[in-house]
């Protein structure tokens, strides 16, 4: 049973691992780019929440695999890191139940992206405040995800059978 589950999940695991490998440059951005500081903390928050929400019995979606695979191919063609990062977010969604809290978690994933640092710079946020803004939003999104997940659990518990 466990072997079957692993076989079923293996393509999703491979896609997620490859997307992570292609996105490894992100660590340099977090370290050296002032607008990307705090990105590692936002990622740690996002990843911890992903570990909590991830379920082993979620059926892999062909659409998500296709979308993540397409992002990897387009990223390779265009040499654009943001597309690899998008592939990670989509591939990570494969392991989460198809519920509102998972989609909120997907949105919170945008907060660790260097592209979010660029967006902050473009809207005029100072580089000295970039880490604070990023981490605060990541924490706020965590609260949103937890509220949605808890509400859903309570709904399921009190649903008439």
């Amino acid at each position, binding site marked *: 049973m466990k072997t079957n589950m692993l076989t079923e999940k293996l393509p999703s695991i491979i896609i997620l691992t490859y997307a992570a490998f292609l996105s490894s440059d992100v660590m340099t951005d977090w370290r050296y780019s*002032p*607008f990307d500081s705090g990105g590692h903390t936002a990622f740690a928050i996002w990843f911890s929440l992903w570990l909590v929400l991830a379920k082993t019995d979620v059926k892999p979606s*062909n659409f998500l*695999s296709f979308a993540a695979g397409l992002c990897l*191919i*387009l990223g390779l063609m265009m040499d654009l890191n943001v597309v690899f990062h998008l592939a990670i977010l989509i591939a990570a969604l494969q392991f989460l139940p198809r519920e509102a809290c998972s989609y909120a978690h997907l949105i919170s994933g945008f907060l660790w992206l260097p592209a979010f640092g*660029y967006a902050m710079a473009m809207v005029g946020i100072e580089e000295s405040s970039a880490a604070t803004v990023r981490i605060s939003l990541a924490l706020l999104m965590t609260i949103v995800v937890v509220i949605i997940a808890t509400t859903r659990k309570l709904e399921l518990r009190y649903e008439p059978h």
Partner: protein
Amino acid sequence: MSRTNGQFLQWLIILFVVLATFAFKIHATQQQHSSLHDVPVSGYGFDGRALEFSDAELAFLGKAEAIKHEYSQADYRLVVVVVDGSNNRHAVHDPIFCLRGAGYETTSNTEFPIINGHGQLISLANGSAKQKVAFWFSNGEQRYTAFSRYLAESAINRLTFGAIGSQPKMITVYSTGGRIPNWSSILDRFPVLMDI
């Protein structure tokens, strides 16, 4: 769709990704070298010299081709940096974002006309140090300053294996000599810049 068909599709996607990786790696190694090194250091009415990139700059550029020339004419001395991101697109960033990230504060930002387009002049301050930097992107036919357009043109060129358009180059110019009153007229005196 049955579970077996679904799994087959998932493996097919992985196969496509693996094939795409090899195809683009092979294509990248076969790309032609750009003509940046043909850009003259001196010519009629101007003189110059090639400058070396620092180790940090070389590390940042990676496989990207780039030149750094200092041109002088009368009282004006300009350092011109041209980056061709064909072999490493990550070497080309939005200069406004990069300069802010490097600790400079943008005090003003104005566009100025150049042949077949426009450039952008950024006034920067870092404590008491002040500097003006002009930049533009060139696809060989038009000159523009929108980084989004650079990304789009670069992506289309890569997606079509070079069949549509060309890889735009980023040109950055700053002065090391006297104050430049009118960047448009000064840059017009360096026709070599308008050939890129």
